[in-house]
């Protein structure tokens, strides 16, 4: 077991203290200088120096000091010095400090006694502690609680030592006596803790005799009581009944910490509905009463756990949970919504939706900056509610449609997508939605929302009045024709002289947009930023939203408008009996379309219409001029069909995901099964025998190292020197999260004794050597195991260089053997992770480091190449499988991974099959730090060749 570390202090290497200076100051009589020197000595020790010569000085000159601070620093010093020799035996000189410790334990100053007792808690050398025991015991009866408190803890830690039970045979007896008379809450807690850890039976006994008064005990003691109960019940399930009563009584404790602990204890003890309900109620109560966001979030986590294990009970509490939405914190709101959405049942859906609606309305009035985001979350929540329970859609859709004109584009898009889905799945609502949409269409500001709304209008205006209304609405929004007049053109050129600059600046400063599949979009169509760009001719055109958007140069929207109008006219031809009306509408539409084309080709706008949009618009003109049944069918029916297909596919995907999720939680074939009805005591769950709390603590302190099989270890063996070198060395490299352990075996292959053999290591990259190298003497043909710890602080490929230096008796100079470099693989530090497309794109835009690797591989198939890259980089493919299907000769995918240090690694893979059958393209890696981008790039370059 490695030495534990009790304190860290930042040490400024700029001002190294010399051991001699420290020594001199320690020997002097000046107390402040002494304090200073002690501090320096401790810092040096923490920094890895050993300072063996200082010990005697300290024993001679510091031990007798009367000053309190010096004494306390002395204790810190004793805490961190090496107290054992290489074999784990206590160094003989340590006995020298015993007398001082004993004096301190009998010191008239109660605080000196206290801190010394506390120091004993951290001391685990029986040899040193043993002579001090009588003094420690004396302090148990001191009248000052500060001393008693620490004395009890000291007794506890002595008792816990390997031979502690022999050293202090009657410790439990004594502590029990102390416990019965003790008044100080802290000391009482410590005493109970001591009994709890050392003599559980006695603790239980005491608890049971005092059952009625537990609720009057101090908060600290109650916490330990709960811990005890958890532990006892885990080992002795039959007695649970006795304790549940205590827990219930503690649920009314004044301290919230105790209440929280009670709830978690209840959950861990029992799966009985009453207990779970009580726990859940308690959590909800805390959720509302605590104002601290941290508490709320953690309580929500607990509720989330309860939700997955006891969904039926949580369903009843859904409204209580929902109340947490009143918090202004987005994280809390998101978590709450996540929990709630999974708890919806037909019975509570109405209530929930009502509540959500109220919240949505609230966001309109509030002035909080985060309202937009919150509203978006709420809309998404309502959306998923409506999908699960279509009957609620009617109650919310109209309310939501008010938000189509929302300034927050994201939430408006959510709304419009929601409407699009509802109108298809809920035919009954079609008429009312269309009417409403036509009414509110003029409010829509964003181009993307507009185009979606236009599609709805084009697709779902069925009756004559609706179609006519639709055409009318669009016309209104486009405003008076033409879009620009000749005179305006003159003005326009004037103004365009100043504005193009501004425009071009805004355009050029924008980064290339990335489409969802990861490819770059070179067009500037239909993006939100266009909305904020200054429009040339807006002043004269306050009327239509479509007009203003068009005048900013958004011809993609123009194409959508043209298509919608075409679609509406085609439908009009079916429903309008009067040929005259139809022709009138057709010509008007043609006029609009033509003027849009004209606008696109004019010089009013900074850039002309793009080819795609103009093609589409021209197609519309052709279609209106000569219609045919085939085309009519495509325009009026196939569109809708493919939308239906998309919806059903989406649904299928969701159900599949659900299914796969459900599969995970299925029991293993050899899992224990609780037969609820066969159990003697109803509702008592099977408890794991192993102590979770202990495990949790062990994991946290890093003691919990899972044993990897040796085979694995041998795979990572590295030869460091050649077989013909006088010293042969090889290393196992074990990579933990934050550190790398090198287990180096050094073998002396000569017939001479190697003296002062030293393994010198140096690192490159974000690696740091923890210890200084030590010198060894190696007998002829013997071997030695050397361990070296290396600290890692970021994900990066690191290299460890090294030398072995030694002396032999006949050669006076030191001989150096250079070691093979050890490369630390970045793959050990990154693991596949998931993030949303939006998050990926923002990170992609933000991150500064990009590494572009040209594809060079023998693999011929795009999919196979992707798989190969995923496998060799240990990343997760974010692009859904469905998007990667089919043969089209090119492929683009996004990969994502996260390092243990929380750094993100983004990879975009774009490959194309070239005419000669080879793959070409690029792999781009982006990250916040240079290290990851470089290391990952190297890795990919190395591995991409594939083939073997």
């Amino acid at each position, binding site marked *: 077991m*490695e*030495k*534990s*570390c*009790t*304190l*860290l*202090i*930042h040490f*400024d290497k700029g001002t190294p203290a010399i051991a001699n200076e420290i020594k001199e100051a320690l020997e002097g009589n000046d107390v402040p200088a002494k304090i200073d020197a002690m501090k320096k000595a401790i810092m040096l020790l923490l920094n890895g120096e050993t300072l*063996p*010569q200082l010990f005697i000085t300290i024993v*001679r000159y510091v031990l007798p000091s009367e000053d309190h601070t010096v004494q*306390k620093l002395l204790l810190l010093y004793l805490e961190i010095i090496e107290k054992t020799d290489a074999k784990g035996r206590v160094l003989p*000189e340590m006995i*020298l400090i015993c007398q001082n410790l004993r004096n301190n334990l009998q*010191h*008239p*100053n*109660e*605080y000196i006694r206290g801190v010394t007792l*506390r120091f004993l*808690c951290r001391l685990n050398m029986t040899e040193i502690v043993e002579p001090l025991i009588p003094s420690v015991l004396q302090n148990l009866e001191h009248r000052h609680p*500060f001393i008693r*408190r620490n004395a009890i*803890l000291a007794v506890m830690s002595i008792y816990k030592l390997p031979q502690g039970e022999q050293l202090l045979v009657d410790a439990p007896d004594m502590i029990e006596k102390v416990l019965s008379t003790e008044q100080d*809450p*802290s000391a009482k*807690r410590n005493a109970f803790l001591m009994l709890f850890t050392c003599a559980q039976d006695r603790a239980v006994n005491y608890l049971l005799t005092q059952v009625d008064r537990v609720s009057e005990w101090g908060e600290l003691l109650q*916490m330990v009581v709960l811990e005890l109960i958890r532990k006892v019940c885990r080992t002795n399930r039959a007695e649970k009944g006795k304790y549940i009563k205590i827990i219930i009584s503690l649920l009314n404790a004044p301290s*919230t*910490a105790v209440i*929280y602990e009670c709830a*978690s204890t209840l959950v861990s003890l029992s799966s009985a509905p009453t207990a779970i309900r009580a726990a859940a109620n308690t959590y909800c109560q805390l959720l509302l009463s605590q104002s601290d*966001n*941290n508490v709320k*979030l*953690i309580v929500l986590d607990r509720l989330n756990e309860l939700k997955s294990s006891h969904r039926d009970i949580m369903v009843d509490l859904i409204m209580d949970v929902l109340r947490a939405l009143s918090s202004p*914190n987005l*994280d*809390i709101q998101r978590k709450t919504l996540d929990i709630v959405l999974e708890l919806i049942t037909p019975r509570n859906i109405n209530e929930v939706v009502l509540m959500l609606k109220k919240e949505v309305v609230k966001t309109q009035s509030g002035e909080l900056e985060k309202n937009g985001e919150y509203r978006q979350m709420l809309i998404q929540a309502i959306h998923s509610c409506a999908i699960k329970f279509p009957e609620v859609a009617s109650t919310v859709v109209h309310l939501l449609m008010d938000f189509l004109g929302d300034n927050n584009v994201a939430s408006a898009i959510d709304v419009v997508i929601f409407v699009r889905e509802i109108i298809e799945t809920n035919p009954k609502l079609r008429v009312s939605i269309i009417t409403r949409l036509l009414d509110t269409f003029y409010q829509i500001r964003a181009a993307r929302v507009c185009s979606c709304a236009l599609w709805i209008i084009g697709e779902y205006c069925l009756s004559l009045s609706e179609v006519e209304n639709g055409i009318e609405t669009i016309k209104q929004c486009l405003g008076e024709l033409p879009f620009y007049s000749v005179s305006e053109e003159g003005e326009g050129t004037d103004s365009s002289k100043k504005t193009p600059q501004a425009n071009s600046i805004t355009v050029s400063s924008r980064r290339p947009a990335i489409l969802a599949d990861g490819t770059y979009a070179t067009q500037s169509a239909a993006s939100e930023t266009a909305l904020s760009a200054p429009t040339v001719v807006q002043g004269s055109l306050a009327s239509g939203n479509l007009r203003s958007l068009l005048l900013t140069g958004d011809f993609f929207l123009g194409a959508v408008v043209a298509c919608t109008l075409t679609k509406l006219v085609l439908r009009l031809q079916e429903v309008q009996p009067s040929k005259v009306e139809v022709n009138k509408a057709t010509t008007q539409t043609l006029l609009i379309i033509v003027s849009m084309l004209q606008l696109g080709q004019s010089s009013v706008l900074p850039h002309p219409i793009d080819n795609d949009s103009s093609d589409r618009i021209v197609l519309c003109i052709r279609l209106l001029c000569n219609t045919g049944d085939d085309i009519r069918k495509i325009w009026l029916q196939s569109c809708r069909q493919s939308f239906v297909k998309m919806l059903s596919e989406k649904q299928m995907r969701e159900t599949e995901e659900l299914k796969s999720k459900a599969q995970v939680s299925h029991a293993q074939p050899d899992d224990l099964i609780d037969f609820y009805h066969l159990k003697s005591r109803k509702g008592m769950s099977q408890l794991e025998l192993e102590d*979770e709390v202990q495990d*949790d603590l062990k*994991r*946290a*302190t*890093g*003691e919990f190292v899972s044993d990897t099989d040796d085979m694995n270890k041998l795979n990572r063996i590295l030869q460091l020197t050649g077989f013909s070198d006088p010293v042969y060395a090889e290393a196992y490299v074990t990579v933990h*999260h*934050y*550190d790398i352990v090198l287990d180096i075996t050094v073998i002396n292959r000569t017939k001479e004794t190697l003296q002062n053999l030293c393994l010198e290591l140096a690192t490159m990259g974000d690696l740091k050597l*923890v210890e200084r190298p030590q010198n060894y003497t190696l007998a002829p043909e013997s071997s030695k195991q050397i361990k070296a*710890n290396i*600290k*890692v602080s*970021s994900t990066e490929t690191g290299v460890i260089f090294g030398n072995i230096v030694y002396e032999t008796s006949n050669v006076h100079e030191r001989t150096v053997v250079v070691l093979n470099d050890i490369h630390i693989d970045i793959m050990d530090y990154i693991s596949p992770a998931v993030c949303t497309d939006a998050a990926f794109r923002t990170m992609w835009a933000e991150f500064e480091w990009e590494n572009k690797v040209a594809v060079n591989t023998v693999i011929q198939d795009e999919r196979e190449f992707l798989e190969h890259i995923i496998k060799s980089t240990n990343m997760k493919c974010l692009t859904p499988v469905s998007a990667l299907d089919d043969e089209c000769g090119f492929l683009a995918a996004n990969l994502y991974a996260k390092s*243990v*240090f*929380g*750094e993100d690694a983004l990879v975009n893979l774009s490959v194309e099959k070239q005419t000669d059958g080879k793959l070409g393209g690029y792999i781009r890696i982006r990250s916040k730090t240079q290290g990851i981008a470089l290391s990952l790039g190297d890795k990919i370059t190395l591995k991409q060749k594939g083939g073997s």
Partner: protein
Amino acid sequence: MVVLAASVLSKSGKVLVSRQFVDMTRIRIEGLLAAFPKLVGTGKQHTYVETENVRYVYQPIEALYLLLVTNKQSNILEDLETLRLLSKLVPEYCYSLDEEGICKTAFELIFAFDEVICLGHKENVTVAQVKQYCEMESHEEKLHKLVLQSKINETKDVMKRKASEIDKSKIDKNKGDKGGFMSMGLGRIEASFSDMSISSTGSGVGGGSGAGVTTDVDTFSTKSKGRQPSSATAPPKGLGMQLGKSQKTNQFLESLKAEGELIFEDVQPRAGQSRVAAPAPTDPITLTAEEKLNVTLKRDGGISNFDVQGTLSLQILNQDDAHIQVQIETGGNPGILFKTHPNMSKELFANDNILGLKDPSRPFPTGPAGDAAGVGLLKWRMQSADESMVPLTINCWPSVSGNETYVSIEYEASTMFDLRNVVISVPLPALREAPNVRQIDGEWRYDSRNCVLEWSIVLIDNSNRSGSMEFVTPPADSSAFFPISIRFSAASLYSDLKVANIIPLKGGGAPPKFSQRTNLITENYEVV
């Protein structure tokens, strides 16, 4: 419910102070703390981060993070309370809340953290209490110091009083002396004064110095009482004064002891004491058997030289008693060769072990009392290579460790003798100050002029046949600690020579009184 560590980090992620409350390796805690700055996001409204294994609960304080690392099952409510308390404490101890300020007061912070969290459990304390605990202002300690001070003062008073009493009594005595011995002249006054103080102890005419009876004085043979006036002219001048002085200090110590002070009486023997001159003979006939040891031991065991030289000398005070023969008994040790004085009758000695002059009519020479040597009658010599004959062996182990040399010395005394006033002198490399003696059976003294560490043991008898000393010096070659020379004395002899009887040759009557002294001393006893 366990706080693993409380730390203060700078915003850039530098660990300024961290105090761990449970056992964890350095690499682990450093890893955890290094990961933290990367995990903490910006723009979040909560202040905790959870990882796979631990939870960080933090609070930004200006350019710093105050951070608690807990396990994941820890009670967040309690941890937040702890954090709140700590965040109040940090500004209390740090003058400026930045890196420099924290580094300057790192230790104070650690002490304060210790008061709030013990063994990972929260303590129920307030800021005021923590400050109080850290100030360590103890009423009891003050009280204790007051009591101690008053005791010292009291003792000083007693001392002063006693001193003045003694002074007074001296003056009184001086007056008395002057009155009684006026005719003896000024030159004798001092001598007679010391004379007086000695005689007063025996006869109880001490007047003012009633407390003067000490055990030291009892060593004077009571037999000598009658003849004291004649022999008492010899004692060294300073002796009386010295006794008086030691009385005073004794009194002081006694009174301190009576008041409950623990005082180790300083009984460090003087360097020259092993050769204390034999008290002047007071019997009419004195026989002195003395053996001198010349021993050279090797440092790694074994004898290179062992040689005992003995003499028996006779001292007769009065001419009247000079016609005698001395009957002796020798121990019968075959290794010892006796040699009589040329004037002695060899036959008498060889046959009857009687020492007498060849011419029985001649008297033995009589010597003045001051001549301690007397007349040599017999000499003997013993040489041996038998290690068991060595009365005291020394085992000295200097070992270099780091920048120091640890020297352990051990003695082992044979059961033959009870050794007195043992002084073991170890030469040291030139040192300015005394070496650090870590453990010792007996007393030590450092003679800085000669660079000799003297280890003295007053008496080695069955209770302490072996003993050891350990001291530390700056690094030195092991040969620097040799040769070790040893001095001691003992009351018994190798030869076991005894005077059985004195046979008077003139006039029958009872044999005259005689006293016999035996003395074994070291002349040259070294470990090289």
